[in-house]
C-alpha cells in the first residue's frame, strides 16, 4: 500500500505539521512502509466482530453537579506563550 506525496501533504495539513520537501519525501517513504505493514490486518475476517474501544467494559461513570474552585486567572494563563493578563493571544482568528 503506497501513499503518494500528495496524500502525505494532505495529511500533514490536516495534522497541522509543516514539512519541508525533504521531510515530505522521507515521510512518504516511511509511512508507505508502515501502512503496508499494518495492512497485515486485512488477512483477518472481522465482519462479525464488534470493535473494542474500551478494554474493560465499564459504563455509567458520573460526577455530581457540585462546583469546585476554578484556577485563578493568573495561573490559568500563566503558561500562555502570549497573553494580556486576561486572555490568551493568538494571530487573528478569521471569520469572527
Amino acid at each position, binding site marked *: 500500500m503506497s501513499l503518494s506525496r500528495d496524500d502525505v501533504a494532505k495529511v500533514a495539513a490536516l495534522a497541522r505539521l509543516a514539512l519541508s520537501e525533504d521531510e515530505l519525501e522521507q515521510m512518504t517513504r516511511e509511512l508507505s512502509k508502515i501502512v503496508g505493514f499494518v495492512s497485515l490486518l486485512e488477512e483477518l475476517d472481522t465482519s462479525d466482530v464488534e470493535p473494542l474501544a474500551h478494554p474493560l467494559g465499564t459504563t455509567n461513570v458520573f460526577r455530581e453537579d457540585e462546583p469546585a474552585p476554578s484556577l485563578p486567572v493568573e495561573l490559568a494563563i500563566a503558561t500562555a506563550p502570549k497573553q494580556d493578563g486576561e486572555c490568551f493571544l493568538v494571530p487573528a482568528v478569521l471569520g*469572527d
Partner: protein
Amino acid sequence: MSESTDNTAPYTTVIGLEVHVQLLTKTKLFCSCENRFGAPPNTLTCPVCLGLPGSLPVMNREAFRLAVRAASALDCTIAEFTKWDRKNYFYPDLPKGYQISQFDLPFSEHGQLEAIDPKGGFAPRTVRILRVHLEEDAGKSMHDEAAGTADSRIDLNRTGTPLLEIVSQPDLRSAAEARCWLGELRLLLVYLGVSDCNMQEGSLRVDANVNLHIPRADGSLAKTPIVEIKNMNSFRSVERALTYEVARQYEEWQATGKELGSAPKQTRGWDDAAGITRGQRHKEESSDYRYFPEPDLVPVRLTADEIATIREGMPETPRALRQRLADTWNISAYDADVLVGQGRELVAYFEALAKLVDDGKVASNWMQQDVLRTLNDRGITIDAFPVPAEGLADVIGRVKKGDFDTSRGRDIFAEMINSGRSADEVVAEMGIAAVGEDELMTLCRELVAENPKIVADVQSGKQQAAGGLIGQAKKKNPNVNPGKVRELCLKIIGELPAP
C-alpha cells in the same frame, strides 16, 4: 412534499434548524468549574476545561439527566446504549484540539415538535427531530480591530459548558413557521428547567439550512443549493434572515439557474444591521473531523425501566398545559397560549385565581390586562408581583357582587399594586363605600327629577337614553354601580305616571 404555507409563491421553502442550548447545570459538562455567564475572562477554568496535558473528563450526571428529560419531551427515542466521540479540529477556542461530542450513537433520535400559530397564520406544522445529542461548548475568541492589534483574544470560560444539539429535519416551510417553532422549543425547554434559552447570553444558538424547491414548466422540480445561515442573534433575526435568504435564492436561481449539487454547501452570515446575508470565506478543507470513540469516557447504558421513569417523572409540558387550561377553565386556545407563554409560575397564579373566583374567562381577562401589563411595565416576573392571587380574587369577587363596577375595580387593583395594601384598605382609603339602597334610591330620584328630557325619551321607548344618567350619577357619587343606577332609574321612570 408538503405545500408551501404561502400559496402564492412559485416555490416551496424548505427549512431545517440546528439549535444548540446550554444546560442549566451548576457545573460544566466534564469538570466542576461553575457554569456561569458573564464572569471575567478565564476565571472559570481548570486543567480539564483548559485541556492541560494529563487532564481527563468526567460526565456531569445532572447534565445527562436534563438531556434525557429534554429529548423525552421532544418525543425522541432514548438509546439504551450511548457513547461519546471526539470531533477533531484545530481552533484557538478549542483547547484540546477536539470537541467531545456524539457521532454515530447519540443518546436520542427521531422525535418531533409542533409549531402552532395561536393566531392561525399557518396550519400546525409537525417538525420531525432527527437527533438530540450532548456535547461540550467551546470558548470564545474576540477580535478588537479598534484596539489596533493583529491578535485575537481567547477566553476559555465557556469551554466545557454542557450543550444540547437539536437537529430538525427540513420540515419547516416558512420563516414564520421557523420563528414560531423556535418559540415553542424555547418555551418547552424553559418549562422543563433544561435551559434558560437566552440568545443574548448565548445559551440558545440557531443555525438554519434553507433552500427552495421550484416547479419547472415541465413539471420537474428544481432545487436551489442549500445555504447554511449563521450569526442570527434573536428569533426575529431568524425570521428576517430566512425571509431575506429565500428571496435572494429565488432571484439567484432565476438569474443563474444553479441547482443543488453544483457546488459545496454554502455558509452565509446574517448581518442584522444591513438586513442581508453574506457569503462567508470558503474553508480550505471541508472539514474531516476524524471522529472516533472517546477513550477517556465510558459509555452509558440505560435500562428501559430507567428511561420510562425519566419520562414519567417529567413536569407538564406547555402543550399539555395549554390543553388542560382550556379544558378545565373554559378559556380560548389563544388565551391559554398567552398564559402558558408567560411561564409556569404565572400559570399557577392564574389557576389559583380562577379557582377562587370560579370563572376562568374573567380570571384570564384580568391576568392578561392588568397583571401582564404591570409585569411588562415594571420588567418583573410573577414571583415579584406585589398582589397575591387571593388579593385579586377579592377585588373580582366584589365586582361580581356589585360593590363597584369593573373599571372601578381596576383602579382599586392598580392602587393595591402600587401601595401593597389590601382591597379593604384601598377601598376605605379611596372612600369607596358600597352605596346603600336608600342612598341610591334618593340619588336616582334626584337624577330622574333633574333630567326631564331623558325621562321623556325613555318613556317614549328609548331605554338606552337612561345611559345618560350614569355619568351624572358618578359625579354625584363615584361609588355608584352604573348598572344598578340604570336599573333603578328605569324602574323609577317606569313608576311615573304616563305622560
